[in-house]
C-alpha cells in the first residue's frame, strides 16, 4: 500500500503526516507536489494541515484548483480513500467532495488545544479501531474551523450517518461548552455519503505517539491502514 501526502505552498503538517505513516505505521509514503497531475498510485491521499496559498480569498479556495486536485477528485469518485486534516478538510469542502464549509471560529481565537471527540460510528473504514466506551483525545489548531451547512444538508448528514466525530466533554457529551469553535451540531469531522472521503479539523497525526500527550489519533490512522490492507487481500 502507498500513502500520498499532498504539499501545497503553505502546507505545514505534511511532514508530521509523512512521519507518522512512515515511522509509526511503517507503510510506504510519498509526497505529492500540488503541481503534479498524478497521485502516483496512492491508495490513500492525505490533504494535510497548514495555510495553503496563505488562506487567501477563503481557506482552501485556491488549493482546490491545483493540478493534483483533479486526480484526487477522480480518485475519490472511483472510491479511493482521501483524508483531509484541518486545512485539508477546508480544501475538501471547497472542492465539493464534502458538503458544508468552515468559517472563522465564533470566539475569534485561534484554538490550539486538546479536544475530545465522540466517534459517531464504528462501522466505517476510518473508525473501526476506535474504542466504543470513551471519546478520543486529539488536538485541534485552527482559527477557521466552525463547520456550517444549511439545515437540509445537516439533516441529510445525520440521516446518512455522515458525521464521523463531534466535539464532546471527557465524558463523551457533545455540549455547547465542549464546542471549541461554534461548529453546528458540534461537528468535528464528516464523511462523504460513500464513506471513502473524511474531513476533520482535529489532527490525528499529532496524536500518534505517547511523547505528544495522546495516542488516540492512531485509532483513526490504524483503521484506514487496516481497511486498505484488507482491500488489497
Amino acid at each position: 500500500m502507498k500513502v500520498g501526502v499532498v504539499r501545497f505552498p503553505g502546507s505545514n503538517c505534511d511532514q508530521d503526516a509523512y512521519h507518522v505513516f512512515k515511522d509509526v505505521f511503517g507503510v510506504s509514503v510519498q509526497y505529492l507536489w500540488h503541481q503534479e497531475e498524478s497521485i502516483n498510485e496512492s491508495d490513500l491521499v492525505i490533504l494535510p494541515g497548514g495555510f495553503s496559498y496563505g488562506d487567501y480569498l477563503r481557506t482552501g479556495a485556491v488549493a482546490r484548483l491545483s493540478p493534483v486536485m483533479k486526480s484526487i477528485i477522480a480518485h475519490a469518485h472511483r472510491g479511493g480513500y482521501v483524508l483531509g486534516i484541518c486545512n485539508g478538510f477546508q480544501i475538501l469542502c471547497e472542492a465539493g467532495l464534502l458538503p458544508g464549509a468552515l468559517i472563522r471560529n465564533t470566539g475569534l481565537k485561534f484554538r490550539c488545544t486538546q479536544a475530545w471527540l465522540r466517534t459517531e460510528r464504528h462501522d466505517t473504514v476510518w473508525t473501526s479501531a476506535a474504542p466504543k466506551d470513551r471519546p478520543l483525545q486529539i488536538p485541534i489548531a485552527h482559527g477557521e474551523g466552525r463547520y456550517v451547512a444549511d439545515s437540509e444538508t445537516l439533516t441529510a448528514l445525520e440521516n446518512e450517518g455522515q458525521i464521523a466525530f463531534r466535539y464532546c466533554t471527557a465524558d463523551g457529551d457533545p455540549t455547547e461548552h465542549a464546542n471549541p469553535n461554534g461548529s453546528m451540531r458540534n461537528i468535528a469531522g464528516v464523511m462523504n455519503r460513500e464513506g471513502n472521503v473524511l474531513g476533520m479539523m482535529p489532527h490525528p497525526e499529532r496524536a500518534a505517539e505517547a511523547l505528544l500527550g495522546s495516542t488516540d489519533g492512531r485509532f483513526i490512522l490504524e483503521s484506514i491502514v487496516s481497511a486498505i490492507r484488507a482491500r488489497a487481500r
Partner: protein
Amino acid sequence: MPHVKVYITLKPTLLDAQGRVVEHALGTLGYSRVHDVRIGKYLSMTVEGDRGAVERDVKEMCERLLANPTIEDYRFEVDE
C-alpha cells in the same frame, strides 16, 4: 475597459464573529447606537469586453471562485 466592483458577504443566517467584535469595539468608543455590524470582502478589477460579456463573466467568476455559495452572497457593479 469596464471597472468591476464585487461585494461578498457572509449569508445573513450565519453569525459574523468579526462583525460582532467590531460592533463591541465601536460600543467601547461610545457608539452605542450601532447594531448588526457585518464584515464582507470588496474586490476591484478591470475586465475586458462589452458590458454584457463582462457581466456574464463576473457572475460566473463569483459562482466558481470568488464567493462560496454555501456561506456567502455576492453582488457586483460594472462601471464603464
